[in-house]
């Protein structure tokens, strides 16, 4: 279809604000899905289904809409990932669009993450159509939130659409507005091919399936192509569109959105953000905005059973096929054995990877406390990057330490401004901006070290604001900080799994917490076991597990002997499974328990 009749949009919305339901209505109104085939949350379900032996993700769906002016338009609905960890992917999805629907629950108002994505869309220069959903709810306050939205995007409250995706009320008008307000793509059909990869997935039958939008020129089946950033050559084995099911086509023209299968075996070969060009008539330069996925959060992942190490290695290799952002390298720990130091985009990404490893590969895993990557300027002028606290050099060799900071955006009811600010200050935050969205709601922006966010920041924010505040963040570079490594020693032996890097002012708290926690978890031994937290050789906290005084069967007579012997044999078996740190015997469970508290607290965002 000619460019003037094409539209590509994304929906920016907070989880539960009704994106899936709105998609359902749009699919129905455009007859992309017949009423008979329609099920609730159609696109979400499609992700799970298999068509022709391959899984097609509903990353983009093409709809044909006959507008009231009698013209037929091709409307592409492009999906955006829903989480802060995937901010870069969101930006690429938006780069493939001409406009966005800013969809907000009329009973709740805009949330932090939606706000972040809105700003991305504004930066990308996209047409923004504000929409309040769920106006049929008794708790809806459309007037109030229309004010809020229009103030944010600089429009008039009367421009805010009021719909109920559930009942369909207002959706036809919205669809009209999409073709009327969102501009058509403005690429050059005669220029050499440039197509933006905005999503990709791995399918075990077909290899990598890439989702793209043709920005300039056109792409034909069997055409030799080149991924410009990856400098990787391939052939377009199959190209097609989803409407909503995958349908191969011969050609994708300027402005069209579709998928590509090019015999690529691993998503990390040609990543999201790359530009596809023609091998015969290549473009001069790729589309702007490509970024390598950058892991921000690191953790050691270990099998609970040491024998499972090869299985874990295989599982990571398989996951990597499907996840360009996952990085890992083998490491070993005295406490946990052999495992991998893995890098993740953020806490959710970490949680997703871990869950998939456990669920899809049936592995039982233990993760160390998450850490961030530090840059250390050494006294000899070299720069060392460390992702595992145990790699930190001696304090004497360190000139300066830099840690990653994030710009944190929090949207909170104004009643909680003080509480939220206090939390951010506790986490070494620096207030950057405060902006009243309305008299009742505030947007607050802080710069905070990422290392402070990956512990229980999100939980704390939620609990201190009774669940009303929402959070989003994005990296803003490295800053120098007064950081130290705190080691935990058992009976004077350091336990690597518990070493951590913290701000000097917080070292004591960390040390105290860990030593107290371990005192409760480590069983009494035959001798006193000191548990110390130390910075270098300086002990900052100490607890003692007192020696066991009594462990004896009181009564041992005839009848009891078999039973008592079995009791003691069981005890002996238990000891065999213990880990030895020096001469201290520790059940594996104690390590897991000690680490679990942190990971539970740190990964709920």
């Amino acid at each position: 279809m000619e460019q003037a009749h094409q539209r590509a949009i994304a929906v920016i919305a907070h989880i539960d604000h009704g994106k899936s339901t709105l998609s359902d209505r749009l699919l129905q109104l455009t007859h992309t899905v017949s009423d008979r085939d329609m099920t609730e949350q159609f696109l979400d379900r499609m992700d799970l289904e298999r068509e022709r032996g391959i899984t097609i993700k509903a990353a983009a769906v093409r709809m044909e809409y006959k507008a009231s002016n009698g013209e037929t338009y091709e409307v592409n609905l492009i999906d955006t990932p829903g989480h802060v960890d995937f901010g870069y992917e969101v930006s690429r999805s938006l780069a493939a669009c001409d406009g966005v629907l800013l969809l907000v629950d009329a009973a709740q108002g805009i949330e932090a993450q939606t706000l972040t994505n809105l700003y991305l869309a504004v930066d990308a220069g996209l047409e923004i159509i504000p929409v309040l959903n769920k106006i049929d709810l008794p708790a809806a306050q459309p007037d109030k939130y229309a004010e809020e939205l229009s103030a944010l995007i600089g429009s008039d409250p009367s421009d805010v659409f009021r719909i109920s995706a559930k009942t369909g009320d207002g959706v036809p008008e919205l669809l009209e507005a999409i073709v009327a307000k969102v501009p058509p793509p403005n690429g050059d059909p005669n220029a050499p091919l440039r197509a933006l990869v905005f999503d990709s997935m791995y399918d075990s039958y077909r290899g990598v399936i890439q989702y793209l939008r043709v920005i300039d020129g056109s792409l034909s089946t069997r055409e030799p192509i080149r991924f410009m950033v990856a400098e990787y050559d391939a052939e377009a084995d199959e190209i097609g569109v989803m409407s909503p099911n995958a349908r191969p086509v011969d050609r994708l023209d300027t402005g069209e959105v579709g998928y590509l299968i090019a015999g690529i075996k691993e998503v990390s070969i040609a990543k999201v953000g790359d530009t596809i060009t023609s091998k015969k008539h290549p473009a001069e330069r790729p589309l702007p905005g490509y970024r390598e996925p950058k892991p921000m959060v690191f953790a050691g992942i270990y099998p609970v059973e040491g024998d499972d190490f090869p299985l874990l290695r295989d599982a990571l290799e398989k996951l990597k096929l499907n996840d360009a952002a996952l990085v890992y390298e083998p490491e070993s720990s005295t406490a946990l054995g052999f495992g991998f130091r893995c890098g993740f985009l953020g806490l959710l990404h970490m949680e997703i990877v871990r869950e998939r490893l456990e669920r899809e590969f049936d592995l039982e895993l233990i993760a160390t406390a998450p850490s961030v990557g530090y840059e250390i300027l050494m006294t000899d002028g070299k720069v060392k990057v460390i992702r595992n606290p145990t790699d930190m050099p001696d304090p004497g060799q360190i000139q300066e330490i830099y840690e990653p900071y994030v710009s944190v955006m929090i949207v909170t009811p104004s009643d909680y401004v003080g509480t939220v600010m206090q939390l951010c200050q506790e986490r070494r935050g620096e207030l950057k901006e405060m902006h009243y969205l309305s008299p009742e709601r505030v947007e607050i922006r802080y710069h905070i070290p990422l290392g402070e966010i990956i512990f229980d920041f999100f939980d704390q924010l939620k609990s201190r604001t009774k669940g009303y505040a929402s959070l989003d963040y994005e990296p803003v570079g490295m800053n120098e900080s007064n950081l130290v490594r705190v080691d935990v020693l058992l009976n004077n032996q350091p336990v690597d799994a518990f070493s951590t890097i913290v701000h000097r002012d917080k070292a004591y708290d960390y040390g105290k917490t860990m030593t107290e926690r371990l005192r409760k978890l480590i069983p009494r031994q035959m001798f006193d076991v000191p548990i110390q937290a130390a910075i270098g050789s300086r002990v900052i906290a100490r607890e003692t597990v007192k020696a066991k005084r009594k462990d004896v069967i009181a009564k041992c007579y005839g009848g009891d002997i078999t039973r008592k012997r079995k009791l003691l044999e069981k005890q002996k078996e238990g000891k065999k499974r213990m880990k030895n740190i020096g001469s201290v015997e520790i059940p594996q469970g104690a390590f897991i328990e000690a680490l679990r508290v942190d990971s539970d607290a740190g990964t709920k965002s």
Partner: protein
Amino acid sequence: MSLAPALTRIDGWVADPGFGVYVHIPFCAHRCGYCDFNTYEGLDALHEPYVDALVRDIERWDGPTAPATSVFFGGGTPTLLPPKALGRILSSVRDRFGIVAGSETTVEANPETIDEAVLEGLLQAGFDRISMGVQSLAPRVLAGLERRHTAGKAVEALEAARRAGFRYVNGDLIYGSVWETPDDLRLSVEGLLETSVDHISAYALTIEEGTPLSTLVKTGRVTDVDPDVQAERFELVADMLGSAGYRRYEISNWARAGHESQHNLLYWCAGDYLGFGAGAHSHIGGRRSWATRLPRDFIDAVTSEVSTESGHEVLANDARAGEALMLGLRLVDGIPTVSFNQRFGPSGLQTREQDISALESLGLLNRDGSSVRLSVQGTLLANEVVGRLL
């Protein structure tokens, strides 16, 4: 099995400790909350048939026999049965196995079941040792343990036993329960010492899995025992009994010289014994077996002329040596290495040499030229020691 042993009283580990017969009486007037022994209340109707079955089971024994060097009637509460019934059973033991003259013949008793007539009957039946379940002389501890006697009754029963002519009188104590204060324990030990007991067994209360007390602890209605408190109480008991002239010869047992329990020493020396009655255990030369636990089943088995055995295990030689260490190290004088090697061969200790030295350097075991024993510190940590030697 040892044949025709000459009767020599022992006070520590020997390679050939004799042969014992144990008889189990699985009845109590009340089953106490802490108790995990095989005993039942409210089975009065079974008393007579049970005695008949016991007698019959002893009579029909067709395995190897030897004259007994010790006999022990335990429970339950054996004295819940009339002395005549106990006498009938003891006679059947004598008839079937023979009892070496002068052998220790013990009956367990609860104070509330004892009066002069009962004591007289027990003596006539042939018992010469009585072991009294005193447990405590502090009313709140007795109440917590659900014991039904008073402190006064317990003391009276012990004195009556001595007056009646028992050669050996033992009092059992249980310490370290949550209901007990140090003074309660001190007064209980003092009270016991004022009677003329020659033997005292003092056990730290153990919360056994599956008992009503364990349920109370798990649901938080009773506080769990504190091993550190129990260690302190052990020292209190040990100090008091030691200064009163009782020698501790096993982890939980004290006696005046020459009054050590012969039957229990047999167990600690990993000796041979046959047990009769519901749930009773036997050990003959590395074969451990146990009878069906329910009195009704026991009676039925005997009546229908089938074996009462419900399970057994046969220990390989190294396992026997390990078990012998587990039992023998409970004795304060430990295990004489020469006799041990005679009985189990030198490999028993040799294969464990590394662990033994490690335990020695941890200060838990002591070795002199001739024996291996628990150190003072190791006494209360015997599980740690034995756990490595099994």
